[in-house]
């Protein structure tokens, strides 16, 4: 039987969800919705008695104080009603929890053919609403066709008896699972099949694959198993293992680099080995705090005598471009599995985000899959639910805007965990699979999720075909698994653990079986969301919230008992062996049987031509802009720019202090609305130690030279750590590359060789910076195809590529958190110092960008000077000399003086003629807006001045002014001695807070 329970808030209560809809319809589309009410529908397909049904309605689905509900459609007046429901197979988290609660309350399990599904309808009132208006609201605010369906009812179309007439979104696959043999009689045949089946096999891999399967010895072995030609399961396994995602073919590729100006010609044999692995391993020898790098799901560093911390960063770009909420929540929940699968498993203690999107006010002809404004709303919401419901604080984050990101927006997510150095008498950062260990899959079930990524999104839909290729993360299921696995870890039940992400079981088992040198997997034992998946689909499905764990047979009963107590599903699906074979069966029939070392059989490296055109050869020059006259208006205009102004509306939605260890929050200052340099967290609540974390994105500098983009990005990340009290002797790094396509093609990618050269230069800079500042790279990832082909006004498709972007994350351990400092000046009368040299470096600055210019003088990092200065500032903060400290970043000193004044709620008097500069007499606008690296602004009590100046003797540190009272303004004297800026706190605050003010 089928029933639908409708629930709504009582009329007199504020319906926040509906109010938000009314507001957005008005502000986004000027659609005049007068009022709205939302109705939540729970559709139950099960054999229930009426008593059972009423019990569910009253006890679970109706709050007697706030809600009304009915088993028939609620009689709520409307001019138009929009119903929104998920497509079959899309993760319906409330539906799943409803099922769990109902089964518990009624004390009866639900059969596979029974289910509970949720949907919503919105009752809109508005005399002037047209059907087109309502269609627009349904399509561009409420639903996304790739995961949802909608129906629209006018008042007279509405049947009060039938209501929205909801059908259960149950997946029905009328299909008997099977596997195919693939023809390999010629390279052409295989490459055609590869295209047909979305195998994405690299043309140069195909002969190697054929040679293997045509080898007489191999054939003989396979015949014993009833196999001859390769199966689709086997080719999917190879395809996954050889994909750029799993194999990093770009960073392990061969680059032929040419500099057209100097004529330099170099062959780069592996950017990864040369610029990431080699320096990091060398630093590991020097720094005994570096515990484990470059092999596991995340890097491991020492936190204190008893504990290690774990860090990694990911991106989830393509899915977020198709379905922003689903992509982002899947991204953050997904990256949270990496620390859970690092070593024997760590406890998550913080996360962070980085959003790069197009202009959210864009109203041009190009049609991205989602408008940047809607995309940002979606990713903000996705990270909110994913992070908050995981019980992990989101302590840091940045949001960037640039037209290039309309082609493909970027969603960076970072995760940190903590684990005892020893668990059950073993080092927690080591793990291995051994013959005889059982292969267990824990967490979610397997469906057609994420198979072949978003390529599936072009498939057409029927009523019951799953739309699972776009996923929606389930933090609730994962949080249960997280708690469960930590108990297993501490009891010593885990021999090996890794997560199921890209490639699903194919990569998690494929890679972990390399250690024991073999495995036997029974795919028919893998628990499914619905019947009818083919073997290869079970093998490569990317269904979320799953971990693969190796458990000794003797520990199985205890493991399963704990799994049961925590309400987590765990299943033995095979065992690790030392047979040398990846052996997969389905109902005792072999469907894959290949050698574990197949992937070492001489697959060729990818090759790229990289041609570097230095800025002077690309017609880049400094723009000619005469000195501004109205610096007050200029300052407020800078503060109001999207990439500078307050993003408090985003940060506030993220729980940044759950777990009780918050020391330095993402927003600081008297009004708690100024972004801090870095966050500091106490992951071990009984300890006074803290972990400082910062993140930097400066993609604009890549318009001039990706080398300096990378060095400036790393320098700023380090500066941010030092500013809050971080230690220069312990800095860990995480590099996340997001690059447009670098494979040259005369027609589709004519500037591919230049972008390839930019990548080579960025990698060289990565090594130079990490060696200079002694930063081991604890983790890193790359996402290589950040381009989009957007339809324009005339049906043409324009390729829009993102800027070459690197997000660099940095960690440091703080011995005593009480010595940390924030950027807000604390007292009137304190002296203001600037540390570090300002040069004429406005290239690709926020200032030039305001005038639509790029210029050529990109900021360049002086590592030698930086190193000495950073150590001096670290010492000063350790001695508790400064009352505030702030690293100068995007927008330059003018912007960051204003941020400090606002944060302190105090005035400042500054004399630009005192600012340490590189000799040439720089004009006021350069001193105020140059983005030279390596600079701080500090304030301290006058009586501290002598000891501070002694500490900084010989360094580019000079007193530039004084902190004044809350009634005073920010006064800046220019080099001619005249006051060029005089702005009161309120004016600064208005400029800074206004742009997104109404979103709080």
């Amino acid at each position, binding site marked *: 039987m089928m029933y639908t329970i409708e629930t709504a*808030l009582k009329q007199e*209560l*504020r319906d*926040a969800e509906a*109010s*938000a809809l009314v507001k957005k319809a008005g502000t986004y589309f000027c659609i005049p919705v007068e009022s709205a009410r939302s109705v939540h529908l729970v559709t139950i397909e099960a054999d229930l008695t009426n008593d059972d049904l009423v019990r569910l309605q009253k*006890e*679970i*689905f109706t*709050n*007697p*104080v*706030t809600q009304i509900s009915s088993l028939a459609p609620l009689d709520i007046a409307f001019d138009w009603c929009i119903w929104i429901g998920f497509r079959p197979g899309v993760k319906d*988290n*409330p539906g799943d*929890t*409803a099922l769990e*609660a109902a089964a*518990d*309350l009624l004390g009866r399990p639900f059969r596979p053919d029974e289910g509970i599904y*949720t949907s919503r309808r919105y009752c809109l009132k508005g005399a002037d609403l047209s059907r087109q208006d309502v269609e627009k609201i349904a399509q561009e605010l409420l639903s996304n066709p790739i995961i949802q369906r909608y129906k629209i009812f006018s008042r007279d179309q509405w049947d009060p008896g039938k209501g929205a007439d909801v059908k259960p979104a149950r997946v029905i696959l009328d299909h008997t699972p099977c596997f195919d043999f693939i023809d390999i009689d010629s390279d052409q045949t295989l490459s055609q099949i590869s295209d047909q089946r979305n195998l994405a096999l690299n043309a140069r891999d195909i002969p190697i694959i054929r040679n293997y399967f045509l080898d007489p010895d191999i054939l003989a072995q396979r015949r014993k198993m009833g196999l001859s030609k390769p199966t689709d399961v086997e080719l999917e396994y190879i395809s996954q293992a050889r994909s750029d995602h799993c194999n990093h073919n770009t960073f392990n590729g061969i680059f032929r680099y040419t500099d057209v100006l100097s004529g330099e010609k170099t062959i780069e044999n592996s950017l990864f080995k040369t610029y990431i692995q080699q320096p990091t391993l060398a630093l590991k020898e020097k720094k005994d705090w570096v515990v484990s790098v470059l092999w596991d799901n995340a890097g491991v560093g020492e936190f204190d005598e008893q504990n290690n911390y774990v860090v990694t960063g990911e991106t989830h770009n393509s899915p977020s471009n198709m379905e922003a909420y689903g992509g982002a929540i899947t991204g953050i929940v997904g990256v949270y599995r990496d620390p859970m699968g690092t070593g024997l498993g760590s406890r998550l203690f913080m996360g962070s985000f980085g959003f790069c999107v197009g202009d959210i006010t864009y109203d041009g002809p190009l049609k991205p899959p989602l408008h940047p404004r809607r995309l940002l709303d979606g990713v903000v919401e996705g990270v*909110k639910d994913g992070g*908050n*419901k*995981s*019980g992990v604080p989101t302590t840091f984050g940045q949001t960037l805007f640039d037209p290039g990101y309309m082609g493909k927006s970027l969603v960076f997510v970072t995760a940190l965990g903590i684990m005892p150095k020893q668990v059950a008498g073993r080092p927690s950062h080591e793990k291995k699979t051994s013959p005889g260990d059982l292969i267990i899959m824990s967490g979610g079930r397997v469906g057609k999720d994420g198979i072949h990524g978003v390529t599936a999104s072009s498939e057409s839909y029927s009523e019951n075909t799953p739309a699972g290729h776009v996923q929606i993360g389930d*933090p*609730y299921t994962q*949080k*249960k698994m997280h*708690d469960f696995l930590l108990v297993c870890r501490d009891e010593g039940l885990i021999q090996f653990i890794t997560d199921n992400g890209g490639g699903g079981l194919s990569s998690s088992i494929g890679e972990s079986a390399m250690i024991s040198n073999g495995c036997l997997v029974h795919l028919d034992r893998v628990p499914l969301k619905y019947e009818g998946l083919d073997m290869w689909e079970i093998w490569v499905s990317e269904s979320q919230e799953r971990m693969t764990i190796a458990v000794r047979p003797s520990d199985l009963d205890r493991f399963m008992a704990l799994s049961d*107590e*925590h*309400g987590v599903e765990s299943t033995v699906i095979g065992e690790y062996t030392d047979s040398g074979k990846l052996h997969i069966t389905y109902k005792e029939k072999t469907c894959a049987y290949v050698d574990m070392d197949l992937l070492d059989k001489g697959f060729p490296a990818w090759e790229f031509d990289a041609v570097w055109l230095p800025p002077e050869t690309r017609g880049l020059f400094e723009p000619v802009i005469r000195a501004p006259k109205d610096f007050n208006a200029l300052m407020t205009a800078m503060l109001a720019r999207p990439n500078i102004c307050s993003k408090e509306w985003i*940060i*506030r*939605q*993220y*729980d940044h*202090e*759950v*777990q*009780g*260890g*918050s*020391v330095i*929050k993402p927003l*600081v200052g*008297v009004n*708690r609305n100024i972004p801090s340099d870095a966050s500091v967290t*106490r992951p071990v*609540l*009984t300890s006074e130690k803290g972990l400082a974390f910062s993140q930097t994105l400066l993609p604009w500098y890549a318009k001039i030279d990706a080398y300096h983009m990378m060095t400036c990005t790393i320098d700023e990340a380090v500066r941010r750590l030092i500013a809050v009290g971080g230690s220069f002797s312990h800095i860990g790094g995480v590099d996340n590359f997001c690059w447009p396509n670098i494979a040259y093609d005369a027609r589709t990618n004519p500037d591919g060789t230049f972008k390839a050269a930019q990548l080579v230069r960025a990698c060289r800079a990565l090594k130079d910076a990490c060696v200079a500042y002694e930063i081991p790279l604890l983790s890193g990832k790359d996402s290589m195809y950040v381009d989009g082909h957007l339809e324009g006004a005339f049906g043409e498709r324009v390729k829009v590529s993102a800027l070459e972007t690197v997000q660099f994350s940095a960690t440091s351990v703080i011995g005593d*958190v*009480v010595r940390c*400092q*924030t950027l807000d000046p*604390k*007292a009137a009368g304190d002296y203001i110092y600037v540390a570090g040299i300002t040069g004429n470096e406005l290239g690709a600055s926020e200032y030039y960008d305001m005038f639509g210019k790029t210029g050529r003088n990109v900021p360049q990092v002086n590592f030698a000077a930086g190193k000495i200065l950073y150590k001096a500032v670290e010492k000063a903060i350790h001695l508790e000399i400064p009352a505030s400290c702030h690293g100068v970043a995007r927008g330059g000193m003018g912007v960051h003086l204003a941020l400090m004044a606002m944060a302190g709620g105090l005035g400042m008097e500054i004399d630009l003629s005192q600012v340490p500069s590189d000799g040439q007499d720089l004009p006021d606008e350069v001193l105020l807006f140059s983005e030279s690296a390596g600079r701080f602004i500090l304030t301290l009590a006058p009586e501290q001045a002598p000891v501070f100046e002694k500490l900084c003797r010989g360094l580019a540190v000079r007193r530039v002014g004084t902190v004044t009272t809350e009634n005073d303004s920010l006064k800046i004297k220019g080099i001619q001695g005249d006051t060029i800026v005089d702005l009161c706190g309120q004016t600064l605050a208005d400029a800074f807070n206004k742009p997104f003010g109404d979103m*709080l």
Partner: protein
Amino acid sequence: MRQAKALILTGFGLNCDNETALAFELAGAQSHRVHINAVIAGKVRLTDFHILAFGGGFSWGDDHGAGVIQAVKLKNHIGEDLLSFVAEGKLIIGICNGFQALVNLGLLPGLDKDYTRRSVAITYNDCGSFRDQWVHLTADPKSPCVFTSGMQKADFPIRHGEGKFIADPDVLSALQAGRQVVFQYADENAHPAEGVFPLNPNGSVQDIAGICDPTGKVFGLMPHPEAYNHVTNHPDWTRHKVMQKRLGKPFDTRDTPGLQLFCNGVDYIRERFL
């Protein structure tokens, strides 16, 4: 001396159990983090404890109303045990998601000694979304609440999307009469916020941030006292520290109103039960 024993519920998406356990430990109690299923299965018995803590988090993802499914499950399996725990005069504290669970269980407000009726609700913030923000609270010095005895005011963070307290006028006046409104959102001078956002961050009627039952032994609040377990948790701590230093005063890291609240509960148990 025997120690007060506190049971902190875990599992099913709850997530503040570690810091809540630590707060009770620092307050001198013996903390036990116990999975809801272990209590339901009888592996751990409520009768062995003096304090029961319903902590923060997203139980069952907060789908179908924050704390609702948690309340239904507990009522369904250990409803009687909870009622006798209250009858014995032991202490129950519900924080954020735990407060939401307590009102859905009917353990709060417990008017007319009825600990099963749902007569108040905590619903969606007026601002329409989740908010993490530190708030000023003013405490009713005449409230029977055991946990806040001697407290006039406190700063704690709120972190919720559903924190708006609502109830019918007659229920509200009953709460006032019984001095059951323990905490109200306030300004920095401890005057009630009078609904002004963001001082009152969610639109709660009468700025209500926390209530207790008529006996003062069952207490629920939306703000997170356990998140103020160290002086560096406070958003203004670096400014406080600079000022203290300049006045030549010490800067004690564990002297916080958050821990004070837990100490009050533990001290009460020590006096009455140990």
